């Protein structure tokens, strides 16, 4: 069987298109590369949705934590503490069983026990907390002069936030936020090992990598393939975020522009 055939059979296997059964014997390198690559669809899906939605909640949480109103500040602080202080792995487990319990009483929660929705929600809340803390830090280090100048020019309320505070906050937070995005993508590999079942063996890249490692009893092929895919994904994320970084800092002379440095922050 040619490699092209394998790709057409298994290229979209992780979302249920193509061959129904996973290969069980005669694993070729092509099988492993194709299936693990197909699993990356899930990693990218989880990462993108959580990141895109989390961006807004993170901004809200950061503003809440910086707020003088007790009723806004305390919930934001607790939210950040809850999600940053506990392992993501446990959060996944807890959320899964919580949804399972809710489902048995309320019909509405039916889809929440599936990874595509339930895990996305956990990742969304988790990244909101981490990014919220980053944004909060940036909000605290906005130069006082910028804010005073805005007042002097007659900016106030939402206009001031929209035109002055928010862009500066983004600019300061962006290098750290890039790292957060990378580690969010890495964290997506936990999903199918933490309660959420892989429906009809439609799992993410690590799910297939461990499938091959279990079947062939040889970890030296699937995991390096997985590593290769993730290094590629990391490079793409860094590339895209650098573009945004350049735009955010376009008013600064080039030697003052902060560079995005990759600083591994590890498991959450």
């Amino acid at each position, binding site marked *: 069987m040619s490699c092209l055939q394998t790709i057409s059979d298994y290229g979209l296997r992780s979302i249920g298109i193509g061959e129904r059964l996973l290969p069980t*014997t005669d*694993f070729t390198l092509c099988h492993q590369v194709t299936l693990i690559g197909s699993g990356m669809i899930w990693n990218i899906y989880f990462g993108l949705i959580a990141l895109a939605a989390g961006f807004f909640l993170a901004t809200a949480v950061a503003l809440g934590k910086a707020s003088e109103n007790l009723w806004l500040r305390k919930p934001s602080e607790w939210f950040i*503490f*809850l999600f940053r*202080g*506990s*392992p*993501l*792995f*446990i*959060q996944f*487990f*807890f959320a899964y*069983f*919580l949804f*399972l*319990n809710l489902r*048995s009483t309320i019909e509405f929660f039916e889809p929440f026990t599936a990874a595509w929705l339930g895990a996305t929600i956990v990742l969304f809340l988790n990244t909101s907390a981490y990014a919220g803390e980053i944004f909060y830090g940036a909000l605290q280090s906005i130069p006082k002069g910028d804010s005073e100048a805005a007042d002097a020019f007659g900016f106030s309320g939402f206009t001031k936030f929209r035109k002055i505070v928010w862009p500066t906050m983004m600019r300061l937070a962006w290098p750290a936020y890039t790292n957060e995005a990378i580690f969010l993508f*890495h*964290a997506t*590999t*936990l999903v199918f*090992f933490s309660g959420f079942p892989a429906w009809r063996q439609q799992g993410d890249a*690590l799910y297939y*990598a*461990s499938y091959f*490692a279990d*079947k*062939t*009893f*040889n*970890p*030296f092929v699937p*995991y390096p393939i*997985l*590593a290769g895919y*993730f*290094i590629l994904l*990391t*490079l793409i994320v860094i590339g895209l975020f650098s573009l945004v970084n350049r735009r955010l800092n376009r008013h600064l002379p080039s030697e003052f522009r902060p560079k995005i440095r*990759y600083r*591994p*922050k*590890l*498991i*959450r």
Partner: protein
Amino acid sequence: MFEYCTNPDTLGSLAWASCYLTTGKHLSFYSSFGTVLVLLAITAPVALAFGFGGAAMARSKVRVARWFGKAYIAIVRGVPDIAFFMFFVIALDQGFEYLLHQVNCPDWDQPIRQGNDFIVCSAAKLPLSTSPQWIHEIYGFFLAVLTFAIVFGAFAANVIFGAMNAVPRAQIETAGAYGMTTGQTFWRIIVPQMWVYALPGLSNLWMVLIKATPLLFLLGVEDIVYWARELGGTKHARFTDYPHGDWRMWYFLVLLVFYLAFTKVSEVVLNRLMRRLSHGQATAGGEALRRAAV
């Protein structure tokens, strides 16, 4: 555990809860919290040693050692760490068995990898199939500790490497001017001074290490996650003394609270430690302390 638990009247009363929470399985659950703490207590120093070695190698003059150290640090980059965990456990196991195989069975002529199987002679099996259960458990735990130490050693090496470079250059040059050898400079000048620079990174690492302990479950150790799933699952009257529905959610809530408390306590302790170490240091933290005292 208690005498009155044999009396069916306690069912439904508060005394029942005390019976339920002291079953043998629950005691195993509690002791698995100990497993997690033991893992942390062993892994942290070992990982620190690995990190120290890696960092020292990465700044070595010998090219091979430097490459090795740099490569070790670089494995943390770009790849999800959970993949390392799953990789190292199998890879280490097979590596040990392969080495034992070479030593114990030199006249074995078949290839070790036969298709999808990894076959070594029975004398090279780890642990030996004849050994008692506790050796199997200890061996699994040992593999987990080693895996954690390798992965976190790489992270620690990254931090310590940065801290060693943060020691002011003038200090090292002065040491050279006083005629110290490279080794003396390293041990007498760099190592004592680097800790204050390394501590923020290392405390961050400690928090991460705490939050990584549930991954023990993936390495096949019977840890708190394992027991929470076991005990929380639906029980039927036929199989256990205390049947109940699906309580896994509550068990994981307990774990969640445990971790939150643990990270909170660590944070407070580490902040105190940082305060103490910063005292009188020429860093921003030390300066802030000095200003506050004036």
